[in-house]
């Protein structure tokens, strides 16, 4: 019966937005969204949201416990373009299938995902853009 069909929910139906990689980057912002660096800083700093500081250190002094697995994120905006940063967050395993860094905007190939997280990428498109915007501001002093 048509009347009882559930309403489509746009956000939930498209948890992962399509993107096109060019070279080692993703030039266009996901879903054309604009990132906000202040929100991005909070995402990167939060162990439960970005989870980035589990593995990385970065210029976020109020977070005392930082990781040593990945490179220091200080100066990453000088080393990499926004497009390169975007691909490294969205799906770093395209560049290095062996890397420990998970694909933050992908649900492909996951197994035994806990019920609370099923079918959801770690970061949604807006959160990715916010994180990209923040990391792009991390420039080497010179």
């Amino acid at each position, binding site marked *: 019966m048509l009347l009882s069909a559930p309403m489509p929910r746009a956000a939930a139906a498209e948890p992962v937005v399509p993107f096109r990689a060019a070279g080692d980057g993703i030039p266009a912002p996901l879903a054309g969204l604009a990132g906000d660096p202040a929100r991005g800083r909070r995402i990167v700093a939060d162990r439960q949201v970005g989870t980035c500081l589990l593995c990385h250190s970065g210029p976020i002094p109020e977070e005392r416990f930082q*990781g040593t697995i990945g490179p220091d994120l200080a100066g990453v905006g000088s080393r990499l373009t926004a497009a390169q940063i975007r691909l490294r967050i969205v799906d770093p395993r395209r560049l290095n299938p062996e890397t420990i860094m998970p694909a933050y905007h992908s649900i492909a190939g996951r197994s035994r*995902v806990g019920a609370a997280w099923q079918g959801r990428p770690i970061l949604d498109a807006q959160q990715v853009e916010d994180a990209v915007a923040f990391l792009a501001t991390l420039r080497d002093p010179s």
Partner: protein
Amino acid sequence: MNRALALAALALTVVAGVGAVAEKRSGYLDAGPQTRAMQDDDTANPAFLWVQRGETMWGERPAGADGRSCQDCHGDAAQAMRGVAARQPAWDAATARLMNLEQRIDRCREERQGQPRLPPESEGRLALAAFVGLQSRGLPMSVAVDGPAAAGHAWGKALFETRFGQLDLSCADCHDRQAGQRLAGNVIPQGHPNGYPIYRLEWQGMGSLSRRLRNCMTGIRAEPFAPGSPDALALELYLAGRARGLAVETPAVRP
């Protein structure tokens, strides 16, 4: 921990086939000095509250005329249970499956004492496991990974190397390849099961290996293996095999 034990926290082992010398390192060495000091001194180690309770339970007769205590059948635990925990989990021919120490104690309680099942992570189950485990303290981990255990061991290795959860990480990603690095504030240990059940400061209590593995699985946002399931036992067996040669530290203290 005495000097000999402290040395045994490092075991030099020749990796078969490669000939390389890999250093196995107990999580004891990655814990802070205060945590190690608690483990070194039985009077400061909170886990000994559970050990004492386990010792009492060892001698308790269940109600009923023919009720027999663990002691009645096994005798002195220091002799009867010496080395038992160092060999777990092991293949059980009667039921044709892998069984860990807690399951063996369960079986004795239920089938030989007619007692109700002690729930997982209950104080009594942890107490008996800690008391029995203590009788192997200082002995090398020496689980059998061949014969009927070989298939489970191979499956456990496969599970250890498979990425799970929303964070899409394997046990090996952290415990083989990043051991010694810091995950946020915590040093990643090699992930050895030689101290279980443990007193964990973060829990402010005692917990089994199964509880520790549940923490690692939920940390990567994965569905934990059901305690006592064939998957869980295979993983426990692989971990025990990986730790062969390390001294049993039960009951250990961990951050």
